[in-house]
């Protein structure tokens, strides 16, 4: 070979390695959307253009589903509870000052404390408070307070899922411990941004409540481009994808064991998409999704989501070929076909498994 090859060959080698090496750069994995702490627009900027959608949005259950425990509404309820706490549990006291809210339970001469950090629930059904507890790896477990406020009774009672009898552990008189993955799951359904840093939840950057960008994705590019960059998901979502998106928090059938999906199971009633996809209405109507009946931009109280206008689209007495109610009813469809079910002592849920009522089943009716 000639004498001039070394620089040429080495240069070619180096360039090839750099080019191929760049192409082979480790690929980042797709992240949970709410875990990514970037590309989010200021949530107020949505209202600048989308007046109609945002006008009443802050009144929706979604927007109010997680608040700081020191939020005025939460504080008001806790102060009310403070007055009656000893009637519910004589060992229980609540201290509220400007910096922290601490619930305490006295056992013998020892006092067990729990600082309440967050208030879960919009108040449509209930509100439950939680405290977070650091663990040795820098993660946070969650203590769900033993007492919740219920809208139905406007009173405090034992939190759903907790035992009526107090346990003997340190926090047993105050609540139930949820480990880190469970705690992460609670927050991920009640917030819009939940950044993870080295596997740890960064609570300082948490955006509480399910707001615009939780469903529409990070919209920084959309805002910066003054609306030119549009969102892709909802425009292209299929019927099932649309329901799955809501099912992210309201659950989907695939998350359940097949044997659990039965009409008589009240637990399924809590998970509306699970029931909905079992419904003949869903199976026979390619367009039926959650947003057919619910407008997520408005509070339920402002919507006619329990009327019959949705039902008559396919079951219209004016149309000869439509299937009509065999009981001869022409209104109030939901009473029989989507009844309210008492899932917990103080909470009712609407059964979204739309079907012919089985009057022999006590659970459903």
């Amino acid at each position, binding site marked *: 070979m000639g004498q001039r090859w070394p620089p040429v060959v*080495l240069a070619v*080698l180096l360039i090839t*390695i750099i080019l*191929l090496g760049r192409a082979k750069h480790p690929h980042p994995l*797709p992240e949970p959307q709410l875990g990514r702490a970037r590309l989010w627009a200021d949530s107020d900027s949505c209202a600048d253009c989308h007046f109609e959608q945002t006008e009443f949005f802050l009144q929706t259950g979604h927007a109010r589903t997680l608040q700081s425990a020191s939020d005025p509404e939460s504080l008001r309820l806790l102060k009310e509870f403070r007055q009656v706490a000893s009637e519910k549990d004589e060992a229980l006291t609540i201290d509220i000052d400007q910096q922290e809210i601490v619930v305490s339970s006295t056992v013998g001469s*020892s006092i067990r404390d729990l600082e309440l950090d967050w208030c879960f629930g919009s108040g449509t059904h209930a509100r439950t408070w939680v405290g977070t507890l650091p663990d040795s790896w820098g993660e946070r477990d969650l203590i769900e307070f033993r007492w919740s406020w219920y809208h139905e009774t406007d009173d405090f009672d034992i939190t759903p899922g907790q035992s009526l009898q107090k346990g003997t*552990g340190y926090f047993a008189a105050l609540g139930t411990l949820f480990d880190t993955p469970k705690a992460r799951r609670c927050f991920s359904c009640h917030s819009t941004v939940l950044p993870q840093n080295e596997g740890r939840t960064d609570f300082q950057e948490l955006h509480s409540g399910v707001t615009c960008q939780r469903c529409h994705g990070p919209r920084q590019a959309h805002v910066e481009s003054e609306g030119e960059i549009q969102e892709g998901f909802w425009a292209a979502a299929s019927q099932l994808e649309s329901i799955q998106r809501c099912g992210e928090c309201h659950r989907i059938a695939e998350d359940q064991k097949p044997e659990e999906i039965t009409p008589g199971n009240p637990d399924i009633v809590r998970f509306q998409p699970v029931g909905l996809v079992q419904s003949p209405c869903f199976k026979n109507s390619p367009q039926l999704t959650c947003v057919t009946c619910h407008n997520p931009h408005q509070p339920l109280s402002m919507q006619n989501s329990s009327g019959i206008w949705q039902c008559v689209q396919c079951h219209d007495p004016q149309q000869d070929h439509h299937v009509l109610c065999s009981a001869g009813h022409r209104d109030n469809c939901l009473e029989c076909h989507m009844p309210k079910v008492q899932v917990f002592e103080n909470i009712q849920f609407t059964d979204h498994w739309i079907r012919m009522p089985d009057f022999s089943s006590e659970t459903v009716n």
Partner: protein
Amino acid sequence: MNHTTHRPTVDSRKPEDVRQRYKIPIRWCLLSGLVILSFHPSLPSGRSILMPTTGQTILSEPGDWHIPATQIEWTRNWGSIAYPLMVCLGSLCIGFLAQSLAARIGTGTAIIALISLSYGFEDWHMLTALLLLALLYVLLRARSDTQDKFVGPLLILIVAIAVFTTLEISIVCLFWIILFIPWWLTGDSQRRFVQSGFLGTVGSFLLLFTGGMATGLWKTLLRPWSAVTTPVYPELLDSLTPVFGSGVPTLEHMMLVLTLLTCWYHAISGIDRPLTVVTCLFLFTLLGLLCGYYLWLSVVASLLCLSTTSSIEERSGISIKRVKMMRVGATLSIAGVCLLKLSGPGTIVRQYLFEGTLAVHRIDPLEWKSEGPALLLDLDRCSEWLDVQTTEQYPPVIDNRWDLYGQDYAEYAALTRDLKEMRALLYFRTDQNFGGYLHRIKDWKPLLVVADTAEQDAIRDLSLSPHWKMIGIDGQATYFGHADDPTFRQQVQTAGRTFLNLEWPGPQTPPPAPQVIAASTPAEATQIAGAMNSIRLPYAALHLLPVEQSIESRKIQAWSYLELSYRVHRNTGQHSLLDEYRALTLIRNLAAQKRWTSRESERLLVSLRGLELEPVAEQLFPSFVTEKDFEANPPERTDYSEMSEEGLIRFYLRAGNTVAARDQIEHLDPTHRPFYSVILSSLDQPLEELAKSMYSLVEQGNLPLELRSELLFYLGCVAIEVGDHAVAVQALTQSQQIDPQSGLTPLRITYLQQLQSQ
């Protein structure tokens, strides 16, 4: 002044010289064997992979190519061979290469090559390396005897063996082309040989091409290409990452790169630069640097190619005597380092030869009598456990055959991340798709999840999963069985009992079940202890820690005491002086020696904050305190003036500040002093002695009631750590009786319940 002498391009030495070369180079082989033994230790009964059984997965398709030898009954058992045999093969191969380099390039290059190849030895490339060596042998044979009619058949035989036994057929073919084509093109070979070799080459390649078209062999032939073009997911298959692709390369890689650079140096500095060498170096440097998986093999190929050249400069300024001295010096140094490494504390050799305390090597999943797919979280390490039998019983969902499954890696990596972070339910991802492992694994129905034992974060989260139960752990892998699978039920119970027995000693605690916990070396035991601590079983971790303390085992000890401190704090609202003092003292000592990695320091900073030790944490790890942290956790500096004398010593002890605590003891009430003295001495004496000291202090009866109750609690804790059931129960019961209203009550009751249930 240096003079150089040049040899002709083509080796003109006589056949007897060449034959001389085939004598076993005992010195080089021994040296290489010593390095392999030192840095890749295993038990004599251990197995090394010769032919990987990869590719037979749940996702494999009928047309996929697998190594034929692993599919045939009578050859499949050669897929792995005894470790000593592998060391012999490896050292022979490297020894021959080093001798050849020493004879033709120089001793220095030979030593560099020997160290790097032996230090970075990769048993799964051994067969391919031997085939490359065989190709070189055929070339030398042909050069020395151009009338040799066996060259063609030999070449075909080598390719046939490559097809039959390895996946790296194209590396062998590439080497063949680089080595032979330019030589044939020179035209000075005999016509007969050229015909034979050419026909052999054409025939072989036609066969390969036809095979590629007819079967999935084509993808296998393109493995080197797909290795450099397949997207890399380091968390899944780090070996595919470019050598300089993710941070600082490993020492093995750096040494191999140094060897490559040495090759380039010789290629450039030689006056005559054969096309063969340049082409070979170019292609294999490209392959090796772009894909760490191939680096070792690339260095072998480059060195082999370099060893064929005769255009080498020799420095005449160095006397033979000096060269010999250099050789002896280098040999002695390498041997010395290896012997030191081999005889070091806790090595397999020392255990095996001197202590005779060899534990079970690995957990055998075949004993579980289950059958079903396995989900491997780390395809680099976890597939090591899959030999022929386990692959049949637990076929992996996917493995490290990027040539077959490269396009599935993105989704698989996202799935394993979901498993590691316990994201079971549906969630929306940044790529506009849905994540969550439950619905993704529905079609595969995996029975086993296999995690790398070093991946403590994944083990911690998986241990909290309702869907998977930890059923076994060894130095290589941690196994999680499907919670609902009835065939695992017995193993789940055995594992649960073993873990609880380790955490809470019974009156007659049996040794850990070997089919649940298996460690071969102290290093493995330390790693397993780390995993135990990660699943919040700190006493189990402390029980498993080896007696001989390494830096790693001291770290695990510190983490375990920290976990215990958290356990006490979370369950009583109080601080455990004993555990916090021991944890913080160890953390301080290791921080002073700069032993904590960045990741560990960051985690410790957050962890210590949770124990209300912000000032100490910030003092120990100041460079990790961010402005955001500072705003979120404004330093509430301790106001010492407001603290009582007793409060002050408690703070010093919790902070691991031994000197200040010792000084402070003098200011205490004399009846209180012995209590704090015994805490201060907790790391200076064996646990048994510490328990005795605590016991005698309790017996003296001079302590105030509260301190006595607290000391009895600590005595109970130390007794659990020692494994003394009776003393633990007695001490905790007494502590409870003396001060039943104490804040420690909930934890004391829990401890007593756990101990009494054993």
